Structure formats: C-alpha cells, structure tokens
C-alpha cells in the first residue's frame, strides 16, 4: 500500500492504494469519477480510459495509480465549466459524433489535446490522431466531422460550423 496525492480536475485526492492498482481504477473507484471508461479489460487497446496526465493524453489502464502521485489529471468531467460545454463537446453533439457514447470520453480527452497541438488539422491528421481510440458505432465519419468543426479550420474556412 502507498499513500498518494493526485490532483484531478483541480481537486486534490489523497488515498492509500495497493501498488498494483491501475490509474483508471483509482479514478473510477476511489475518486468516483466514472466518466472514464474501461472497454477492453485493461488491455491498452481501446482508448476509452484516455485521460490527460499533466495535459497530455494517456491511457489510464497503462499506468499504476502510484505513478500519478504528485501529478495533475484531467478527466472528461473536467472539460465543461458547469453546463458550458467545450467547443469540441458541442461539436460532438451537433455532428452526432457519438451513438452509444461509451468511447466518447476517451476520444474527447485525446482530441482536446490533439487540437491544442494542431489547431488546424487536415482530415487525414484527425484520423491519424484517432488511431488509439476504438469506436464500434459511428464508423468515425461523424467523429472526424465533429473534430474538424471544433478546429480552427472550421472557424476560418466556415466549412461547417455545426
């Protein structure tokens, strides 16, 4: 067991955890933030558990919770400000970027960082950025539409404001 301090969405959580506990379980079970999902039984292949560690997208089943000690995590619950959704969240709603929604939190956490690093992506770059996130409903077309709509490409070119 080890006592760790992790700041999640601006709130400090101090918990004593088994060393073998995965970060995703810490987030879901100790902190009660169940927006972060597990779709592939911790195999690191689905991306549904993607969160941001110090601002960078990572799969939270690929880390032990103790590795996050002293770090800053952002989960999907930390995106919106109250009921004010982020432009990416709004675009997902407007473009039907989700059907069952199970993969959506991970995609939002990955694509939020993606757009920070690359505010004017091509469609190829968006698809390339999505490799680590599986969606079995949408076929990705509407997800790509949503990410494009939230990018500067949409704002500048007026391709599709949604």
């Amino acid at each position: 067991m080890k006592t760790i301090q992790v700041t999640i969405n601006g709130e400090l959580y101090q918990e004593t955890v088994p060393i073998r506990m995965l970060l995703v379980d810490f987030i879901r079970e100790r902190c009660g933030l169940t927006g972060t999902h597990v779709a592939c039984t911790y195999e690191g292949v689905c991306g549904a558990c993607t969160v941001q560690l110090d601002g960078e997208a990572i799969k939270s089943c690929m880390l032990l919770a103790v590795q996050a000690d002293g770090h800053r995590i952002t989960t999907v619950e930390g995106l919106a400000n109250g009921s004010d959704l982020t432009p990416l969240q709004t675009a997902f709603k407007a473009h039907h970027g989700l059907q069952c929604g199970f993969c959506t939190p991970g995609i939002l956490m990955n694509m939020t960082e993606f757009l920070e690093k690359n505010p004017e992506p091509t469609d190829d770059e968006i698809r390339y950025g999505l490799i680590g996130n599986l969606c079995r409903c949408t076929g990705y077309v509407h997800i790509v539409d949503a990410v494009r709509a939230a990018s500067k490409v949409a704002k500048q070119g007026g391709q599709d404001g949604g």
Partner: protein
Amino acid sequence: MYPAVIEEYVRPTTVEDAVDVLGRYPGGEAIFLAGGQSVMQAIKSRMMRPRCVIDLQDISSLKGIAVNADGIRLGAMVRYVDIVRCAELPPAYAALRDAAQHVGDRQVRNRGTIGGSCCWNYLASCLPATVLALGGTMMLLRQDGHRREMAVDDFLIGPLETARGDDEILTAIHFKAATRTGSAYQKWGLLKDALPVVGVCVKVSLDGDGRCIAARISLSGLAAGAQRAPGGEIVLVGSAGETGIIEKAFAMIAEQVDAQSDQWANSAYRQQLIRTLGREVATRAFGRARGES
C-alpha cells in the same frame, strides 16, 4: 489482465539510487519502469510479476535530447513524442523521427521511451531496429558504479533479450555526428501505425561525388528480432543510390533472410515487403544524405 501483488514502488531521482534499489532484489524481481507501454502489458498479463517496481520518471539525467558538434545524445527516457518534436535532428538520424512518429498511437507516443523500447527489444518494434541501423552506442551504468559503452549490435541479442546486466541501467544512447549521411525508416503493418510485420531502416554515408562509402541496413518484424542485413549493405557501397542497385541489394536481402510465416503474413509476402519497403527507404536515405528533404 490485472497486475499481481507488487510489494514495493520506488521513484528514485538519480541513476545511482535506481541501480541500488535494483541490487536489493534477486535478479528479475525488481524491474525498471520507463514509459511502461510494453512493461505494463507484461505486468498486467502476469508474464512479469515483479516484487518491486522502480519508476524512472523523476530521474532528470535520463531525459532530454542534446545535439552538438560531436553528435546526439538521447536520454533513455526520451519519449517518442519528444523525438517527433525535436527540430534539430540531423538528416543522418532522421530515421529516428520516421520510426517514432508511427509507433502505436498518440497516447502511446506520449509515454513510450526509446530506452524502454530498446531494453524490451520486442521483435516487432521500430526503435531497436532503427537504433541498430544508425549504429548507436548504448551507455550503461552498473550498480558498483562501473560505466560501459556498448555498440547497439552487441546490445541487442534477440527477441526480449539484451546484453544489459541484471544490475545495470541504460542511461542514454549516443550517435556520432556524420556528414553527407542520411537515414530513413519505414514499416508496414496490418493497420496504420500497427506493429511492423516488416520494418526496414537504412543509413548511408556518401563521399564528395555522391558515392556510398558506408551503409547499414536493419530489419524488424522477423522472428530472430532486429537484425542487420550485411549482404545488402555491401551491394550499396560504391553506388550512388541507383534504383537498380538498391533493388538488387534488397532482392538479395529478401532471399537471404529467414522470413517466418505467421497469421499476419507468409514468408513470401514478408520477402516482398522487404523488397518494396527497402527500395523506398534506401532511396529516401540517399536523398537525405545528398541534402534533399
């Protein structure tokens, strides 16, 4: 997939402390955790059941890419994303970026490290083969304080096996500066950025007339792990990168290697990949050596 019980977790701030902890446990019972994008999979599947995990994230000396007149030094904890973002990589070592930017996915590239990948030495991975073709020097520190340098050719023994001792840590990888030199890497997998079914890396150095004076070729994805292809290297030396000669070199390599058949590709398909990728990669490496983009 969930880890078995782990007794101890430590996060040293120096390499000396890291190897000290390693020495407190019998061989294999304490393990280093770098980016964890392979090791955590092994821990979760219980292929590895470490008693102690030594997390290297706080050791600043293992981080950073330094480029100077002598060459480049990559700390063992340099991540794929750090390599992709490094604007100063000379053309001689451009293959590092070719390889790093197509490992896994964004999330993996934000965590995975060059040192971790080389120490894990999985047969279908990009960085061990790339470092092999580039002729890197592996910098190792032993628990008793002894430091040694080892050519990557001696370091990479076979799949999941390296010459790193149970009491050693890989601290950095060095590459000597090289003029009129270019390199390139490319892989083919079943999905974009999937593990390589075959990957090819080429590094060539040219003389003032554009003739090849030294060549190194490596392959990934074959059952024996990352490996050089010396037969093809000899063919490239003396050439100016003519397509016919490059094709001859990779036809010879495809003929000579032991290309396995498995669920991803049969032997003949792997040989075809070696010929096709080899032509593209070698052509790009020659172009870079000539100063083309």
